[in-house]
């Protein structure tokens, strides 16, 4: 469960405004083999790119939770070291997504309280949920409903940014969609695209901490500029007018 005691050394001495990101990852049996390998690879590339960039290194705060046979805090906030990430393994038939999300929210909340206590500015936290299935296990549905309610309330008050991500074809997209009230559809990827998914998350977090990109933009995946594109002749003609 989330640690409530606040240890100042876990926060570092950076004065940067922090972006706390909690990954909440599915490690049920169906993730075994290539998907979990890709997930580990994507995650460690993500961390490496955060650490290689001066703007994100001290501004991005990361925790990782897995949900499989049980919910585990693989890496709490403030513990990102040089030794790299612990390997994440897939197992069992259970998928306690709801419990995973509730634990993630507790971690994020404790981190926010820590920032406040230390006087550190922060961006509203990110919850990144990645699953390839549907809630399974004892009380899984009831907990999922609790998790959805909690997420919706926080998101509505602009206190949480949610990335609800489904992998492959066995995802219960209907329930995953309900995790976010702002994202029109869950983000859908194949496990072969984990690399790109984490690159996207990396560049988005970098945009937030270094360019001040608004949270709303994180829900809009459109890429084309909105204005009208003109060729060079029209461009100069327009400027002369």
């Amino acid at each position: 469960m989330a640690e409530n005691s606040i240890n100042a050394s876990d926060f570092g001495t950076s004065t940067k405004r922090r972006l706390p990101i909690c990954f909440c990852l599915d490690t049920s049996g169906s993730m075994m083999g290539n998907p979990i390998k890709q997930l580990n690879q994507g995650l460690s590339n993500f961390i490496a790119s955060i650490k290689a960039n001066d703007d994100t290194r001290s501004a991005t705060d990361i925790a990782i939770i897995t949900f499989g046979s049980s919910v585990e805090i693989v890496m709490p906030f403030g513990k990102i070291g040089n030794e790299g990430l612990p390997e994440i393994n897939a197992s069992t038939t259970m998928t306690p997504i709801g419990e995973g999300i509730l634990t993630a929210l507790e971690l994020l909340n404790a981190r926010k309280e820590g920032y406040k206590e230390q006087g550190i500015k922060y961006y509203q936290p990110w919850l990144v949920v990645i699953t390839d299935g549907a809630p399974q296990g004892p009380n899984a549905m009831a907990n999922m409903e609790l998790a959805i309610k909690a997420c919706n309330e926080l998101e509505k008050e602009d206190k949480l940014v949610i990335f609800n991500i489904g992998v492959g074809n066995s995802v219960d997209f209907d329930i995953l969609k309900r995790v976010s009230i702002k994202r029109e559809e869950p983000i859908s990827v194949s496990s072969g695209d984990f690399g790109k998914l984490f690159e996207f998350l990396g560049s988005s977090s970098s945009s937030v901490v270094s360019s001040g990109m608004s949270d709303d933009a994180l829900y809009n995946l459109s890429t084309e500029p909105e204005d009208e594109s003109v060729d060079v002749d029209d461009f100069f003609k327009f400027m002369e007018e």
Partner: protein
Amino acid sequence: MALEVIKNYKSLIVDYSFIRRFGGTRILSEFLDIVTSERIDVYVSRSFKLMHYCVIHQADDKTSAAASAMRDFCTMLLPDKLLHSVQVTETSQFLAKMSLVEGVCLVMADRGILMKRLREKKPSFIGDICVLGEDGAPALYHSIDELLAANPEEQLSTLASADKYLDVPFCNIGDTVTTGNGERLVLEKRVSAGAEGMVFTTTDPKVVAKIYHKGIITPLRWKKLQTQVKMGINSVGICWPKDLIFFRNVPVGYTMIVGKGKTLGNVFDGPDALLNAIPDCKRLDIVTTLADLLEKYIYLHMFGIVAGDIQMKNALIYSPNSIYLIDMDSVQVGNLPCPVGTEEFTDPKLWGKNFAGFLRKLEDEDYSIAMLVFSILFCGLHPFATRNGAETLREEILEKNFPYSLSGVSEEHIPKGGYDHIWEYLPDNLRSMLFKTFRGGESYEAIEWYEAVSAYKDALSAHEYEDEEAYKAFPKMDYVATDPNPISKPRFTPPVKTSNPDSPFKKAVESMRASETMPSGQSAIARRIMYDPNAPGNNLNNNKNDSSDGNKGGGGMFGIFKNRRQ
């Protein structure tokens, strides 16, 4: 004789804009001849001298005449006791004081800081105003109202609202581009990438090329670049656009001088980052950096520029004596607005406005300057970073939750880490100015901040404080570098500007040399010098976090996501 008109006055006020604009021309010599032969008293404010420092420290050939002009001005007027320095810096207070002098005339150039201040502050002043235009022709006004009526405010350029962008061809390493001067340059190495474009080294070692992404060159941007290139600001520490760049006859970017170092935000980021970047950093180094930054911004103000988007990532620091303003293509030039800005550094009264939709005032910039002063003095800390405060930074700013006090009581909201001691050791006038700004909502002119910071710098240099703690970057704290990774690299062996053998710059170089044989582990990967083509690992693959991908024009990354219910 164009300046005959000043013979009618017993006393003149000379604004610095007159020296900067007409230094080295016959107008100044004519002026001095008249003043000495007619024995007219000349009054200047304290900002007169301060602005002169801002100019000569830029060593810009564009203003090289200012130094000799000032010498002439002083050597001709001082022996005859005709020059009087009034110990006031702020515009309104100075003019109020000068109104007490009977039959006085204010002599100024038609563009520059004072004209803007008069327009914004509308101070009361009893006296005439003689404004010299571009050609030195004087226009005489009998009041500030009359002056402002005859010189209406510039209107926002209509290009600012154009919703068009140029469809640019993609160019990359190896491509040959042409400058506005017809010079051909080859793009050699990519040295950095950002939301708007990429920066390349070129076959001309003196300049780098910024090439924009698709969707970034708008009519406003191009018009501004054209204007900037014409202005020709040529100071080493200001990475001003030098020339336009075309690829297959289509505008794609501009050239600028090479800046080096890390962004302020990555050096002034708490004790660990600061001491790792500048081992043995002292308070004097911090204050020197700040004074240098203020001089640069004030210098730009003299040319009718408002920087607009002042923030910690828009300047590079290589050493406290070597600072570069970057991203100069966004500044407000004349009636071409600065379309960007951050909530953290912008006056809250401008929040929510479309930055491209209005012209920023110097008064707006004063807030950002105050933010910069606090952020540098406090090694990166935001003035409204508060322990146990409101839910968001936004609320803290709006509620003016500045946790520092002048009385030293109820300071439990100051973030931990020694920031209370930084506050405690600041000179009283700086504390008072910061307190009144962030708690009281008052405003100080950039030149007033420069004056206070310069005085602090002089006091530190002259070792005026008895308590040795006052000279530490973090007084009363014993921080040491945790993972030294100095910005300055020994391989460049750049000229050490200061003769001080104990300069932190030199020490940084030395400590770097000493540790070179040791494995540097993670820090070697993390080390990155913007715009520095020689830095290890500083090629395109190092920029995984290119923020362009999250913004318009970046593209590419989103293609992987399927819309499930299409």
